[in-house]
């Protein structure tokens, strides 16, 4: 007896359709899974058998062959427990009123526990999207994955608690409808409301005294999603500033939230909820190449992808190995990373805001106001050499963070708190959202060349001074465009239609960092 159902496998961030085919025949009793299963898939035979028996059905004493098609794609994970179990029960004619209409229009996914309970799996959003794209009507998923799957529209998500319940649902359409998660339910509107403020951070911008220029730079960077580097002596507050930038960024929009949760759910099980606050990743400088960029035996997204739509903060940048720094060149520019392997390639998005903190030299006090630097000129040269030029060129804003003076550190006046700045930043984001509506971009830092030229055309002042600037500061083409992008953000913050000279001047102020012309 032959039976077939639809399931899904993960390939990078996307899911592909897998059809679970089963053939039960007479002969020596055996239970084989073919179609390049890995260890976890093969072990599912034991789980399926126990789950079927414990749900009160009979496990047929026959020759059972399961094929996961297309058979040349490696199948990993525990996704196929549920479809295989349903297929076995259905193929051995143990469901009296099986509704083939439902089966042929459904996708199934889930891990089985030995008692027949259905446990959550990873990557559920990608699978739900795929299920919708191939025009399936129903998607049967584990109950605890429901909050993530619900954000995908135009598909009926069916939540399943155990095997027995699901077998009732595939034969009885009324029972199925009871378990559909409607899109109008209260939990869902809560779960997708991006305007709700999430002040879950235990740090605040008002804790930073002085450092007005650095704070201003942080606000600009957050407003336009620009990359930023802080250079300064130890203890000046570089890391402190960087950690607080995420507190002034508005929470993820609904679409962004789905994108981010999609990546996170690949890495481990996030059974419960959507991720709504912006990611802030702060990897240690001993991070491995696969850990930072993504990869590994079974390719997984790395830190750059985990900080998608958020902040990647590389503290003590000079300590990172040279090769890791160079690896950042393409992802920073392309905003996605393709991990190529022998037989397949995986595409992970990584649209992050890069924040770097570093000392200006090995002892840390080069160009400090009061403390003397103990490094030789040669050592300083070597130090800056390690900070790759091409990567530095991709950083839009450079800020010197000097050590605090006594009047700053003992001042009683608190700075602005994160919430105030956040409202300004989110206003600025709204302006950009209107500008980039219906294009692929979201923020000024992603603007295309056509748009940048149109900004220059519009503003006569800029057109006049630009060539002089270009030559004076030996700007690269990329540096020039990033300069315009930053000035655009500054203009947006003042809600100005066109870029003015003062905006450009402020932007170039961030572009050119002194340090004896080191960068």
């Amino acid at each position: 007896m032959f039976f077939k159902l639809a399931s899904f496998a993960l390939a990078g961030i996307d899911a592909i359709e897998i059809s679970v085919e089963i053939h039960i025949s007479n002969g020596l009793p055996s239970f084989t899974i073919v179609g390049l299963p890995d260890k976890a898939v093969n072990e599912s035979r034991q789980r399926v058998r126990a789950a079927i028996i414990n749900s009160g059905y009979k496990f047929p004493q026959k020759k059972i062959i399961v094929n996961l098609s297309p058979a040349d794609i490696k199948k990993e994970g525990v996704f196929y427990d549920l479809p295989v179990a349903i297929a076995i029960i259905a193929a051995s004619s143990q469901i009296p009123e099986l509704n083939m209409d439902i089966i042929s229009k459904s996708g199934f996914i889930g891990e089985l526990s030995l008692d027949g309970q259905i446990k959550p799996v990873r990557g559920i959003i990608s699978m739900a999207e795929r299920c919708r794209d191939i025009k399936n009507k129903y998607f049967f998923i584990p109950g605890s994955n429901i909050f993530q799957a619900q954000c995908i529209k135009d598909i009926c998500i069916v939540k399943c608690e155990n095997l027995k319940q699901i077998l009732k649902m595939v034969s009885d359409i009324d029972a199925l409808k009871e378990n559909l998660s409607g899109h109008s339910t209260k939990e869902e509107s809560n779960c997708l409301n991006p305007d709700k403020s999430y002040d879950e951070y235990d740090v605040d911008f008002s804790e930073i005294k002085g450092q007005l220029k650095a704070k201003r730079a942080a606000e600009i960077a957050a407003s336009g999603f620009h990359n930023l580097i802080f250079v300064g002596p130890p203890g000046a507050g570089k890391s402190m500033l960087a950690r607080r930038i995420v507190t002034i960024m508005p929470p993820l929009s609904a679409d962004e939230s789905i994108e981010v949760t999609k990546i996170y759910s690949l890495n481990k099980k996030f059974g419960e909820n959507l991720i709504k606050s912006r990611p802030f990743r702060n990897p240690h400088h001993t991070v491995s190449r696969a850990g930072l960029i993504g990869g590994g035996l079974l390719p997984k997204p790395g830190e750059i992808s985990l900080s998608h739509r958020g902040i990647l903060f590389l503290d003590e940048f000079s300590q990172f190995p040279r090769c890791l720094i160079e690896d950042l060149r393409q992802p920073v520019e392309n905003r996605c990373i393709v991990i190529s392997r022998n037989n397949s390639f995986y595409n992970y998005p990584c649209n992050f805001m890069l924040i770097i903190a570093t000392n200006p030299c090995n002892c840390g006090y080069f160009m400090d106001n009061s403390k003397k630097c103990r490094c030789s000129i040669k050592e300083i040269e070597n130090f800056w050499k390690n900070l790759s030029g091409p990567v530095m060129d991709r950083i839009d804003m450079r800020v010197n963070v000097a050590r605090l003076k006594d009047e700053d550190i003992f001042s009683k006046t608190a700075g602005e708190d994160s919430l105030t700045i956040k409202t300004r930043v989110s206003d600025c984001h709204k302006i950009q959202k209107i500008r980039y509506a219906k294009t692929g971009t979201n923020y000024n830092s992603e603007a295309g060349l056509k748009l940048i030229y149109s900004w220059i055309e519009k503003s006569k002042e800029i057109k006049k001074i630009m060539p002089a600037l270009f030559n004076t500061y030996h700007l690269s083409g990329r540096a020039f465009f990033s300069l315009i992008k930053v000035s655009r953000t500054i203009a947006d913050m003042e809600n100005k239609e066109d870029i003015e000279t003062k905006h450009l001047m402020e932007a170039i102020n961030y572009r050119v960092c002194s340090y004896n012309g080191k960068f």
Partner: protein
Amino acid sequence: MNSKQLTGILGEMAAAGYLKRTGYSILGKNYRCIFGEIDIIALKEKTIHFIEVKTRKSIEFGEPSESIDFFKLEKIKKCAWHYLFSNNCPDHQVAFDAVLIIRQKNRTSIEFIEDIIR
């Protein structure tokens, strides 16, 4: 015949009696081929059952079920293939079972286990 063989034969007779009482018809006993031996081959409800009988006089050295290991099961499987092909019925419905017997002085216990392979 030594006492070990006697124990085995007595056990197989007891098992055959038990199977007959529970509705099996015996197709063959001690089926030998190059792969090994199957103790009892029986038919019930269109299914051919290959039955391994294991007899112990005491459980001092372990239960009888413990002595049927992976290698024994592989042997039984191969023998079953041999039987099915030489009798021209490789697509027949098949099951593998075991009868475990403990013969102690005053009483004998018989246990029937279904589906021992997998």
